[in-house]
């Protein structure tokens, strides 16, 4: 998985405060022991270096290992010079990744773009489509819809029976069922009892503690959809699990890519209005977008928390630089104006924004749209899928990540590797499966939180940690944030990744991370 490896390298380097040229990363990734190579390179870096360049890697690797993997790396390295823009094609490697501060005010950099080449489509936006009125039936409908749509991905794989039929089958039969996880319990003898529910009722499934599937139990969340196969007990009151199936992303999934070299910046959690909002870093980012190096960045995706909001937690006003919510959005709009005008912006709300907290969250209302109209961003619901030149990006703010991280074992999901928590959501094909816990649900006529189609990119934020990687060829990116460590984060020992902008090549789905803090 060279791509995952490079992603790891980039995040490792960024966590140490370095940017990296893409080729340098590729070279490191293809080294025999990328981790060790990385260590050596970092050690050899000149004191003032902020960017790991190809020549740094070359010199280090050549010194340490004469049979350097150059050849491989070269062939693996993406065909960088983009075809769409004729001029300055070879420049990026030379100046690329340079600290962009010097280019301040250089907004005039050549950003010749051809809007005709672009395409941007939105799917799954439920803004203005909220038809639920908070009745019991609405809740029932939403869960039935979930089972219906995710179940359809499983029904072909097993010979499933409804719960009500299973209990009438003779003991010892082979059975299978598709349903929502209703309950997960451990038994006194250490086995696991998982109750599956479908539209006819519930049925208990026992996962024996010594079976291979037992590890998967750790990953289960209530209300996710899965299929189980197994053998019915003698009294038909319970079934013993032989295999478990998740809706999952097919291993064969081949992501779509753009036909040209074009990039998208995937950011989130700007938190304008907070005392800790990093205006400097934001400005550097905006300035950088005006540089040549960023000339291919034609899309900017914002995964929620534009502003710090009001009343999100008790006594929040004491930590607000801008106390007025409308002024927060006005200030945010000002910051947005610094982004080159030709960049297409898509944004969804987050839990700090002035929309309902319950998911799905509709996009901002007219009043707020008006405030942010200067740059004419596309404002859609959380979650929504945006397709950029054929590359579909599922944007979701990421509140459920907290829950996934809390419920799952550390090695499967942690704040340090937020993308691994995202893998779990991809596997479950649902952005926020568990009901009744951390995540809030507003019942609508359908479950907008289901990932019906496989996205090419899954983009979240919320946890203020940067991390990305690929799961079954789907690129999962959790953007960092633009808010420095808050007192609360300090108290719970969260060190946010603030001031980074992950940039995705839409033609290759490669990621580079730009650091602005």
């Amino acid at each position: 998985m060279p791509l995952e490896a490079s992603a790891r390298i980039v995040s490792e380097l960024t966590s140490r405060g370095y940017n990296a040229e893409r080729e340098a990363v590729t070279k490191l990734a293809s080294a025999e022991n990328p981790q060790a190579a990385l260590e050596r390179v970092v050690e050899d870096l000149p004191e003032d270096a902020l960017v790991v360049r190809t020549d740094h890697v070359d010199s280090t690797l050549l010194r340490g290992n004469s049979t350097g993997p150059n050849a491989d790396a070269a062939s693996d390295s993406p065909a960088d010079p983009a075809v769409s823009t004729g001029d300055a094609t070879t420049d990026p490697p030379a100046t690329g990744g340079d600290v962009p501060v010097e280019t301040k005010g250089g907004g005039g950099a050549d950003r010749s773009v051809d809007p005709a080449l672009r395409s941007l489509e939105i799917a799954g936006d439920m803004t203005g489509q909220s038809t639920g009125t908070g009745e019991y039936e609405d809740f029932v409908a939403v869960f039935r819809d979930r089972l219906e749509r995710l179940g359809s991905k499983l029904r072909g794989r097993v010979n499933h029976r409804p719960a009500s039929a299973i209990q009438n089958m003779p003991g010892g039969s082979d059975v299978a069922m598709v349903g929502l996880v209703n309950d997960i319990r451990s038994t006194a003898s250490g086995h696991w009892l998982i109750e599956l529910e479908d539209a006819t009722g519930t049925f208990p499934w026992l996962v024996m503690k010594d079976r291979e599937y037992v590890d998967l139990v750790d990953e289960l969340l209530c209300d996710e959809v899965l299929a189980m196969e197994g053998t019915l007990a003698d009294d038909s009151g319970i079934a013993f699990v032989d295999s478990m199936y998740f809706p999952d992303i097919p291993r064969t999934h081949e992501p779509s890519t753009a036909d040209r070299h074009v990039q998208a910046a995937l950011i989130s959690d700007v938190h304008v209005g907070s005392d800790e909002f990093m205006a400097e870093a934001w400005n550097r980012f905006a300035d950088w977008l005006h540089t040549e190096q960023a000339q291919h960045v034609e899309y900017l995706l914002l995964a929620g928390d534009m502003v710090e909001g009001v009343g999100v937690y008790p006594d929040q006003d004491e930590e607000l630089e801008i106390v007025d919510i409308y002024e927060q959005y006005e200030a945010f709009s000002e910051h947005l104006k610094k982004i080159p005008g030709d960049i297409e912006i898509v944004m969804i709300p987050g839990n700090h924004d002035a929309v309902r907290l319950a998911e799905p969250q509709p996009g901002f209302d007219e009043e707020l749209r008006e405030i942010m109209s200067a740059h004419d961003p596309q404002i859609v619901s959380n979650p929504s899928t945006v397709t950029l030149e054929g590359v579909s990006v599922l944007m979701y703010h990421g509140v459920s990540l907290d829950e996934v991280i809390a419920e799952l074992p550390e090695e499967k999901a942690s704040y340090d590797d937020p993308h691994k928590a995202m893998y779990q959501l991809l596997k479950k094909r649902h952005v926020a499966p568990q009901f009744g816990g951390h995540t809030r649900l507003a019942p609508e006529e359908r479950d907008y939180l289901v990932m019906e189609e496989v996205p090419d990119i899954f983009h979240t934020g919320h946890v203020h940690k940067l991390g990305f990687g690929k799961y079954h060829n789907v690129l999962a990116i959790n953007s960092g944030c633009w808010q420095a460590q808050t007192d609360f984060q300090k108290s719970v020992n969260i060190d946010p990744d603030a001031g980074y902008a992950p940039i995705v090549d839409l033609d290759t789905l490669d990621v580079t991370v730009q650091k602005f803090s």
Partner: protein
Amino acid sequence: MREADERYFERLESQLDEAFDVAERAKERGADPKPEVEIPTARDMADRVENILGIDGVAERVRELEGEMSREEAALELAEDFAEGRVGDYESKAGKVEGAVRTAVALLTEGVVAAPIEGIDKVEILENDDGTEFVNVYYAGPIRSAGGTAQALSVLVADYTRALVGIEQFSARDEEIERYAEEIALYDKETGLQYTPKDKETKFIAKHMPIMLDGEATGDEEVSGFRDLERVDTNSARGGMCLVMAEGIALKAPKIQRYTRNLDEIDWPWLQDLIDGTYYDDAADEGDGEDDADEDEAADESEGEDPADGDDADEPQGPPRVEESTKFLRDLIAGRPVFSHPCAEGGFRLRYGRARNHGFATAGVHPAAMHLVDDFLATGTQIKTERPGKAAGVVPVDSIEGPTVKLANGDVRRIDDPEDALEIRNGVEKILDLGEYLVNYGEFVENNHPLAPASYTYEWWVQDLAAAGADVQALEDDPRIDLEFPEPEEALEWAVEYDAPLHPEYTYLWHDISVDAFCDLAAAVAEGRIEQDGDGSVNGNGDDSILVLAYADVVADALETIVIEHRQRPDADRIEIDDWRPFVRTVGCEPRRAVADGAALDLDADRDGGEEEPSIELERTWSADDLSERARNWGREDEPDGANAIEAVNEVAPFQVRERAPTRIGNRMGRPEKSESRDLSPPVHTLFPIGEAGGAQRNVADAAKHAETMSDTPGVVELQVGRQRCPDCATETFKNRCPDCDARTEPDYRCPDCDESLEPDDAGRVECDRCEREGTCVENREVDVNDEFRSALESVGERENAFDILKGVKGLTSSNKIPEPIEKGILRAKHDVSAFKDGTVRYDMTDLPVTSVRASELDVDVGQLQALGYEEDIHGEPLTHEDQLVELKVQDIVLSDGAAEHMLQTADFIDDLLEQYYGLEPFYEFEDRQELVGELVFGMAPHTSAATVGRVIGFTSAAVGYAHPYFHAAKRRNCDGDEDCVMLLLDGLLNFSKSFLPDQRGGKMDAPLVMSSRIDPSEIDDEAHNMDVVSQYPREFYLATREQADPEEVDVQIAEENLGTDLEYTGFEHTHDTTDIAMGPDLSAYKTLGSMMDKMDAQLELSRKLEAVDETDVAERVIEYHFLPDLIGNLRAFSRQETRCLDCGEKFRRMPLTGDCRECGGRVNLTVHKGSVNKYMQTAIKVADEYDCRDYTKQRLEVLERSLESIFENDKNKQSGIEDFM
């Protein structure tokens, strides 16, 4: 003990014995779980300790040790006894430690609270990583009631016993240490701790703790790191452990250290580091690291400035003042008004003294003020207060100054009579001043609060006068002189003649106006005229004159601020002041008789003509330039701004003027007072189980007819009950008497695995040796409820129409599930009383203290008091008259009217019970409530396990239970709004049974496991010992308040000094009398107003009227602390709610996909609906708007409102206005 006291107690005890005999005889006959009375009598603490613990021999040993050493030392001594097996019958080491720890906690809590049995779950021996053994003490939530010191000592005793029996120390693993820190922080967040140690501190303690502290999970919230530890059973916070560690060890380290030093066996050297705070890596940076504990305490506690520190060289720029504290305003909720913002002008003025119904966490408020705050304050209403404590119960005291109000007609009047208050209440435009607020010295001692500068009051002035050389005794004896409320002329005369400060009656609140305002006022006065108002009244000036000033807003404001009675007539351009002479002299003006033509004295005829000159002219004797710079700038100590005119006044007035009210005390309403019967919810009459057969009402009669299907016999219900067996004829039953041969039955324990019959061992444990399982006698059994019900009716000779409904319980929660005889329930239902979980009938009242009473206010006559042993009044005069004050005896209590009514019903129930069920003579036979006087009751507080015997002495219309502070303290209550219950003596003796108590944590709390027949003042909660018992505070005290001295430094006698002497039950003198202990409204408006909205409207309306309250802040806080949390919380709850079946009540974590109930197929619905989510939305928006709240608050509401719309409204089907159709 005096002979009179001895007689009193003997009398109580003989009365008790009499009832006991009756109860014993009854019990022998009935079918109660036990054939004898189940509440043992304890004459002293040693008895209680032994009874609560149930360990023989403890009482004897405690008595031996008691005279020789402190209780803490005795606890350690007993630990040795346990270790060596001299006390208790424990074989295992764990058992010895457990016995010692429980005994220590019982001893330190005087054997009253449930902590020793409920707060310590078990002690076990576990293994360290190196294979050695260590002790694990398993705490539970109720350890809270033990208090920090006992909690801390329990750890020490555990360690000491551990050392003595030879077990190694505990060595915590790193992850366990981290876990402690995380857990304590979590517990603090979830539940809150009085003291929260920092993480470093917790880890330091955990690392050095020689025994393991463990416990039950008490919360739902789980720790996020350090989960699933091998030696910690739970991932939730262990509440008991957190309390012991934080409020015990961390907070009380100096106390434990005192004892560790004397013990050779154990060594806690780390305590010193803990006390010094040197567990930090950077301890050196901590400036006061070397300070010892005592000094720290003083420094930490002093809230105000410390004038003692101030070097005399640089003189203060302002008067001594306390610092504002806004803590009491936190969590303000709708419907409970703020009476005064912190230290706000116009708020309650601190007056020192103790009224006879006062002390022990109470606050004296003038009854007129209670009415004027729209009846929100009543006797017993709890207020949250700025200082000295956190909360207090309100008591009516009318010997202090009442509130001053401005009426719609422009009159500014002080209201000293509650009747007047009611009369003028509708015309009140503004409450300029709430009057005085009486706090006794002992409160400051108890809270270790530096004394706050005292108001200038009569008690102080009269001592000033004596100090100035006046013969106060002669003045007091002069029948023409009212020293407390003198004529203005007299007040002036004394001030001038003796060079004493001006009398407080004529001392106004000069410190509340600025020097500039004062100069303006003086100028206005100099321009003023003296008129004869012609009404013939003398107005106390020796003549019929009043001062008339030209109307000006600044003058009116100044007069309102200094709180002087006057009349504003803006239309006539007049402001009139009656008692003008002291006022005029104070502002530095001299009245001079004008050169008049004599005709001026002709007042009646043509005063209105206007051509006449006034006979008296006012001459200002000073100009602004005459004021010293110090007086001009006098303000706050840190900020010389001329905001305080008192120094200017003293420079221009011909006498000394003291600060009238330098300390104002902010407060708000806490809980309303309480006086109502204690019912289980839903109320039950009998502890007899009927399952679901009785319907939602738990109606026994319905259950008797209930049949699941057509083929079932009506009334036969399957129930979980205890199996009993008759020892004589081996009949199996669930009753306490054999239905065949009437012999008493015994529980029939069996092993659930092998069904072997089992006998309980000595400790009462039932275990099957073969299967190692706990035996039980509980079984599912078909019970013919119909037959039980009918035969019970028959046996007591009642018919079904004797009562409306007889309510049973769904199931029993006790360990052996022994049902109560239905007969008792039938008689309870007949007399409309309900049973508590232990079988008793209870009545709850807010506790208030009283030390002297009058027969007249108790609705009793002198004869009745005399019959109870009251012979003399407080002055030693023979008791002959209803209005004489007598000193209350310590176990005598005053019942509220409601309680008396309820006691009468209970007495009727008991009489019927004796006659119709037990077949004995009735005991009480009351006709009216007067006969209750002299009867014994039990007082019993929640979280405790000991009842205290009390005697009814009279009744009050206030909705509270007045009793001697020692009586409350014996129950471990103070009077800051706490409430507890009374039970009729014979009801407790007859109907209480331990067998009914729930078999769960806390089940033994609030149950009379033992009763104290007499109060030993040394064995009660020592808070009561801090009450002052004098009739006057010395002048030095008042002067010391100006220095904000430590309360311990002044000499006022407190009750503690009499402990152990003959005087310990007597001599509770007071400084202030009150006409009646039940003045003001009987019930707080909070209870009489209907809906929450009405209450809130009244609250906000009142906040507008009160000068001392900022209504915007109140609105802001109500929204912030009540509406917003409610809205946000409900919205959150909505979007992650459970659902419930409307038919069978089954709950589902998530909506079933079938839509219907999985259990019964019934209809399922939400538990949180739209209506409950947005019930406050519109009100909150309206209030925010009306009271001009900040944009921040308004915007939060806006965002929320939109969220609600988004969730509850269909975007495509929006409610449209009528204009859409036009």
